[in-house]
């Protein structure tokens, strides 16, 4: 759906029905979507530079479907930063393509997060069951949103604070939790994927590579 930016009037496209937040690609206004109405929250500061080969518009394949990256969330923790790319699959499913120190993951939100223990009861080594699978807490980090672009399913404003929990599962699988005041616990399960497996198209050009 195409809407007009209340700030600059440019077309702002929302490809996913689930996207409630967007950044105007022309004037960097941060926009909250209420059905077909857009509300301006403020301006998104320029994202810190990075050399990610991904960008909004990059297409790829995951298992038997293809997807398009429609948004990005850049987060920072005490020891560095990483990207969570919001990916819209052809069947409308929303995925998150994680990019951390050259590793890539694809994960999907688990709607019912009621079964997981509260975040303050977790510490590395604790076992957590999600669905039928068991996971083990690897890391718990406090993260801050450094900025976002494109469209996203929650208010990914700069400075959004949350606690991120990484849980390792069987084989290449993992789970993760994002716990914030506004959204509560967001639970995801996913797996590691090799860069080449995604068969990416429309990657960002990187100077000299």
């Amino acid at each position, binding site marked *: 759906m195409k809407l007009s930016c209340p700030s600059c009037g440019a077309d702002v496209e929302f490809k996913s029905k689930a996207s409630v937040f967007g950044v105007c*690609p022309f004037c960097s206004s941060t926009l909250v979507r209420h059905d077909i109405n857009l509300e301006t929250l403020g301006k998104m500061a*320029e*994202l*810190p*530079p*990075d*050399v*990610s*080969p991904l*960008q*909004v518009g990059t297409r790829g394949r995951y298992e038997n479907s293809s997807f398009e990256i429609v948004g990005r969330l850049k987060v*920072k923790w005490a*020891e*560095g*930063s990483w990207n969570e790319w919001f990916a819209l699959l052809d069947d409308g499913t929303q995925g998150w393509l994680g990019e951390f*120190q*050259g*590793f890539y993951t694809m994960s999907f939100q688990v709607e019912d997060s009621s079964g997981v223990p509260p975040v303050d009861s977790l510490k590395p080594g604790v076992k957590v069951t999600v669905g039928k699978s068991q996971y083990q807490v*690897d*890391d718990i980090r406090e993260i801050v949103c450094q900025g976002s*672009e494109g469209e996203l399913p929650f208010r990914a404003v700069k400075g959004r604070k949350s606690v991120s929990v990484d849980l*390792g599962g069987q*084989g*290449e699988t*993992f789970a993760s939790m994002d716990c914030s005041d506004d959204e509560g616990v967001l639970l995801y399960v996913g797996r*590691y994927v090799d*860069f080449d497996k995604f068969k990416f198209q429309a*990657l*960002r*050009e*990187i*100077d000299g*590579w």
Partner: protein
Amino acid sequence: MAGDAEAESAGGKKPAVKTFGCTSCGAPVSVKAVGQTVAVGCPSCGAVIDVTDDNYRIISEAQKKILFFPAIPLGRRGTLHGEKWEVIGFMVRTDGTGVYSWREYLLWNPFKGFRWLTEYNGHWNYIITTRKNPRAKKDSAFYLGRTYKLYNRGEAKAIFVLGEFYWRVAVGETVQVEDYINPPEMLSREVSAQEEIWSIGEYIEAGAIYAAFKPDAPLPTMIGVAPNQPNPEASAALMSWRNAWIFFGIIFLIQIATLVISSHSLAYHKGFMLMGDKPVDKFVTPSFAVKGWPSNLEFTLESPVDNSWIDLDIDLVNDGTGEVREFSHGVEYYHGRDSDGPWSEGGQKKDALLSDTPDGTYHINLDSTVATPPAQKTGAPQQPRVRYFELTVRRGVVSWSAFVLALLAIFAYLVFKSMKQGSFEAKRWEESDFSPYKPTD
């Protein structure tokens, strides 16, 4: 961020190198893996700087003198395992005692992330961080269905840092390390106060490093055997098993072929009786034909000797060429009874093989000698001499002795190879406290 030659912004434009002035010495410091690099060791003064900090905080102070130089210069690119990598970081680490030091090179590719090269005693490893932590139990670690044996447990201390790193490295940073091996792989665990990181490395030939990165100077000389260096004798042992099978196959086929094509046809057969009183007599056989492939002739001598013997000097004469082949043949048979019971020695029938005999017409000149029986006690009748023998000549007879000898040779070869393999394994474990080759305290 004053003084930044900032990279172009994100959002579709090409990212570029980020450059800033070293907080300690002011020299320009560049960052390639922008967004991923957290700490940079200044190439001019060796100070380590936090690039995620707005003020470029110094993590560890400048070095008085830069004493270490990477064998592969920072910024150099090379292709390993089909992927192009750029060297962006270099670190020298020592063990807890400071006796052993090794060098680590951080490789980066904007699409594929990071890899490590480590160099110790001229031996190289190509390393990647594991996506999930392997399982460790006692002196073993388990990862993706393989078992790794503990080789080293101790400390690793960074004593020199140059270039970019994706964590906040500092000179003096010490972590607990464990190395587990299953050549050519090595599984390593690094535990710090913050985290536990596992990585998996594979031994890589120095020649491959040289070919990929074309360093300006020769790479460090290789010393000794690396913990996870593939045992060349192990692959050689595989080769020798292969060779042994091939060799066995060949001689087996030859033997089978010989069995198939050997006619084993009768060329000549006759019985002879020594005439007159003397124990010697000469015979000349009529000519007989030997047909087929050039192969051996079997001479079977049979005589009812009984506590006596018979000897033949045989001249085989080729009627066509006049060529003569001489050899001796004989049978002896003795038996009796002593304190241990009955005994016997020899026999009344014996074969002799004459190899590589061409076809043609032959005759035989025979010179025969028989035993004279020992003198008997007075009054007893003199035992008669055995004067009769039969000679049979057959064509194309298969010999098994060469085949058995060849099998023994193959076996000896394999035993030798496996001993060489064992001595390499002992060298591999020489520097380990967990060697299966020496008693543990």
